[in-house]
């Protein structure tokens, strides 16, 4: 009799102890004090997607740099992030903690389509900015009316797919195309954009489209064999890094030599393609992709002022990080944009004020305030019903182990100055 009684009392004591550490009382505007602005975000530091772990490190480096230069209107940025292991259930609980206990001013750069989908409604209900989500899923830009507190940042997958479609129409009008795409929203966004870019006339150029599931335990050998059998002379890869590299290697193993290979920008980074080449693939050379940021692993950008600034920041504020990893530069570039938007929102910061600024951004070379870490000429622009912050990209081609820019910037999303 007494033991169960003791057990329950002991358990409740533990619960009470846990409860005691309630958060601080919220100031006038949550997350903002005279001295600081609290920004928080969730990232996969463990589990299958932990490859993206460098992004928040890069953001932290830029925020430290900005703080050292006087911060934002006299306030220092307090940047905190936690591991959700790419499991939406964790993302939801951690985001509740950010909002209800830590009283963060804004949730910044949350990574992963599904995790951010899981918290979008909650953040909008509580009127907390879901700023610059780290996912290219089109819904985060397109559905701004339904979710006013949510805004994307990087070029969305559908727009990028459309650019590849336009490229094929312009340069490979009678190519036979074999597509390997991931059967989740990531792959579907790319494929939908690609077909839109091809427009009705060229749909028939796609001779086969093979789906691949990320949770599958064997490489896409079967799919690649079918693409080879279809006689496609142009291979299009819309998959995350691991299956993309495996596709390159299996292609060579099967003796498949497509004339052209187009690969989505997420997987077409120098480190990943080097791995494909080292693993013996001989169809990597000549890969077509797109880019919108400077590429630290590519020596041709070393002379750019943005690259010099990036290397200084990383050396000083994130010495242990690998500065050649494009994910770090992605973090720094996004953090730059966050600081610009915070400055523009003025000294009496409010969440609504922040979103208003983010809805009307215009950082362009013309006004001498373009994002220094983006490719020269890339504009960060949002206005009324055009809520695609970065929608310009430049075609790049992988020539002797380096992505060479090919011609001028292309606008993925309709008319743009």
């Amino acid at each position, binding site marked *: 009799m007494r033991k169960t009684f003791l057990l329950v009392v002991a358990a409740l004591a533990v619960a009470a102890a846990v409860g005691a550490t309630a958060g601080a009382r919220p100031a006038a505007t949550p997350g903002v004090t005279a001295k600081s602005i609290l920004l928080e975000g969730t990232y996969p530091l463990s589990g299958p997607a932990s490859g993206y772990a460098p992004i928040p490190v890069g953001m932290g480096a830029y925020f430290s740099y900005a703080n050292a230069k006087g911060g934002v209107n006299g306030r220092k940025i307090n940047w905190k992030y936690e591991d959700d292991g790419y499991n939406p259930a964790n993302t939801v609980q951690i985001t509740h903690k950010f909002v209800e206990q830590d009283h963060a001013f804004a949730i910044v750069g949350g990574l992963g389509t599904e995790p951010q989908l899981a918290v979008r409604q909650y953040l909008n209900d509580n009127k907390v900015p879901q700023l610059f989500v780290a996912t290219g899923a089109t819904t985060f830009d397109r559905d701004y009316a339904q979710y006013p507190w949510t805004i994307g940042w990087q070029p969305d997958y559908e727009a990028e797919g459309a650019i590849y479609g336009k490229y094929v129409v312009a340069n490979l009008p009678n190519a036979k195309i074999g597509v390997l795409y991931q*059967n989740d929203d990531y792959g579907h966004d790319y494929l939908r954009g690609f077909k839109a870019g091809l427009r009705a006339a060229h749909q028939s150029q796609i001779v086969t489209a093979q789906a691949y599931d990320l949770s599958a335990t*064997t490489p896409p050998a*079967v799919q690649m064999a079918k693409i080879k059998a279809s006689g496609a002379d142009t291979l299009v890869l819309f998959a995350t890094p691991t299956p993309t*590299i495996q596709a390159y290697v299996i292609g060579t193993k099967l003796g498949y030599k497509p004339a052209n290979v187009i690969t989505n920008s997420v997987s077409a980074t120098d480190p990943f393609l080097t791995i494909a080449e080292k693993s013996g693939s001989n169809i990597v050379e000549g890969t077509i992709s797109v880019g919108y940021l400077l590429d630290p692993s590519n020596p041709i950008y070393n002379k750019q002022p943005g690259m010099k600034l990036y290397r200084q920041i990383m050396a000083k504020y994130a010495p242990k990080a690998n500065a050649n990893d494009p994910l770090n530069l992605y973090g720094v570039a996004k953090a730059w944009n966050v600081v610009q938007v915070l400055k523009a929102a003025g000294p009496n910061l409010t969440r609504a004020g922040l979103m208003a600024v983010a809805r009307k951004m215009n950082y362009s070379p013309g006004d001498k305030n373009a994002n220094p870490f983006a490719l020269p000429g890339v504009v960060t622009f949002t206005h009324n019903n055009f809520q695609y912050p970065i929608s310009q990209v430049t075609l790049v081609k992988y020539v002797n182990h380096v992505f060479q820019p090919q011609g001028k910037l292309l606008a993925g999303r309709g008319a743009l100055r």
Partner: protein
Amino acid sequence: MQTFFQTLTTGLADGSIYGSLALALVLIYKATEVINFAQGEMAMFTTYIAWALMGHGSSFEWWAFFATLGIAFVGGAALQQTVIRPLERASVLTAVMATIALLVILNGLAAWIWSPQLQFFPSPFPTSSWVIGGVHISKQDVGTFGVVMACVLVLWLFFRFTKLGLAMRAGALNPSAARLMGVRASWLLALGWGFAAALGAVSGMMVAPTVFLTPNMMQAVLIYAFAAAILGGLESPVGAIAGGLSLGVLLNMLGQYVHPVTSELQLPVALAILLVVLLIKPAGLFGRVVVKRV
């Protein structure tokens, strides 16, 4: 016809990986009646060690391959003596949870020490393939199959012909009788874990070139190794290898020729086969049903 042979060789290569890991599971189960859920992560961790020894994967070195086998052996034995032995008397639940704790720790440690980034792992075999009658047989597949089978053969010779190997087999069958003959039973359990860890290292190093080195690379392979071990019967080493090979070939054939088995259904299909086999033969194809006298 061409794709049939290609699928067959890939299937045999995959199968040899599942088989070697399944054999490692059987080695530990026969000696300690514990299913080692951390077998996959032990293989992954030792593969990272090999990667570090090979100058962060710059080029494949055979000396590093054998050095890793040695380290894996010692590491496996040490793990048994420190983590598993104190729980020898505990319940099956505690034993299962101990190996799961090991799984989580090793996974976290690998990401912590070597970063979760995708890494290249060199293969000892060229990625080109022989072309025989229009069929592309990848040298890597044949090499993988060869290396894994060679290691399994060495292990078989050890168990069959050496005194220590015989003692380990006897210890697994009847530990108390073996101790009465002067066999140090707890040493043998450590040896069992050592061999299992070394086998895991072999399968890890052979599969890394295709699935690339990440802290989670072995999780998928482990599930198929479980299926192979059960298919063959947890008691029989021969069954584990046969189970692995047949599963590898079956999955590749299904993927190639049966339309609805798209990539996400490969796993459920494999597990369905597993359940069906177990319903017919609860001790697996080669296992023997132990009649228990009270």
